[in-house]
């Protein structure tokens, strides 16, 4: 839960500090990229709270590495 709260606080801060000026200056590309990244962040944070265990990228990389390099174990 802490994660989500912190992410939301940071996001609100970002919106005030960065996104609103971008909107006012009509820098649409930056604006949408920014908002998109924020949305991803919030979605990830919510998933982290909902999911019991996030899939761990290190595991995937490990499998790929073992596959490519043919490592034992």
């Amino acid at each position, binding site marked *: 839960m*802490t994660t989500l*709260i*912190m992410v939301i*606080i*940071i996001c*609100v*801060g970002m919106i*005030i*500090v960065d996104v609103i*000026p971008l909107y006012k200056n009509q820098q649409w590309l930056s604006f949408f990229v920014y908002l998109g990244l924020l949305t991803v962040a919030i979605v990830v944070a919510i998933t982290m709270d909902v999911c019991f265990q996030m899939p761990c990228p290190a595991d995937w990389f490990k499998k790929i590495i073992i596959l490519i390099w043919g490592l034992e174990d």
Partner: protein
Amino acid sequence: MKKVLVCLLILGFIPMIFSGCWNYKEVTQLSLLAGIAIDYTDSGEFLLTFEVADLHEMGEKSQVKSVLVEAKGQTLFEAARNVISKSLPKLYWGHATTVIISQDVASSGRIAEVIDFLCRDAEPRLTMAFIISQTKMAREIFEAQAPASEIRSTEINEILDDAGSQSKIVSTPLIDFIKAFSAKGQSAIATALNVEEKGGEKAIVNSGTAIFKKEKLVGFINPEDTAILNFVLDNIKGGVYVVKTDPENAEKKISLELLKSKTRIKPSYAEGKLSMEILIETSVALNEIGGSVEYEGEEAIRILGQKAEAQLKSQIEDFVRKVQREYGADIFGFGQTVYKNLPQVWREMHDEWDTVFSELEVTANPIIVIKHAGLLRKPIKPGD
């Protein structure tokens, strides 16, 4: 824009500060642990005795008192946590200075468990004194009197700090014990303490060294032998060495103050046979002349030195032989020396090191240099 940011940061921190500074612990919310004694209960569980510094009654005048708290558990961690239920604030290990382990625990081969428990947690420090008690229960040490300080653990540490001025005690902080414990070809040793009754008061006394073999306690050696052990282990930082100058006359003794000592163990391997040479170089000062030892001049001093050397040599060799025969535990780290200096030899014989060790030929070659003789030119004798 920065103001908004600052406001937000503050706003962000406020809920965090209020929702819980997770590790925030006031000093008064902690029980400051001074020492811990580890015993077995009759049913084979761990019995931990904690010596906790009691500050509740402490005003401006009175000293810090200590209280003993007990806890039982199947594992050490469980036992440590069981204390919490006993209306005592959380135990804080950061200032603990002593771990006392009873003979039973030490000889039952669960010492590794104890070490693991102490090292895994972040709070206990690796510099804690690691002690084996020769009493039946380790907690008896905490029940003894402590004349110098109200807290027994502090008292014990003061005894150990004195190791510098008397060579008869070996000081083994936890880290040193673990080093020896985990090193190849070395058996661990630990300080041994005992409680003696003097005039109705129980006092903590040094009782030499506890010897481990693998993870089991195999025996104790007395303080006199501990001094010899310190010579071999290069642990001499001071102390007194008494030399009997005349084998027939026990009264004729001199005391040498140990100023500086350096020990090197030199392994040599020739024709499939390993031998060890212990080279000791000690500077001493002549401090006391017992009986009527005659000495005057350079030559006499030299002879005194030679006598001392001979005595030390035989003592060391006897002691090493005794350890080889009785305990078979390589507390001198001979194996380690071989591993470091003759790795090829070690590779061959590390599997049967125990047998190699007990048959190892060890010679000691001490050199004692008498640096000065105090203020007197020659012994004071009764005038005719």
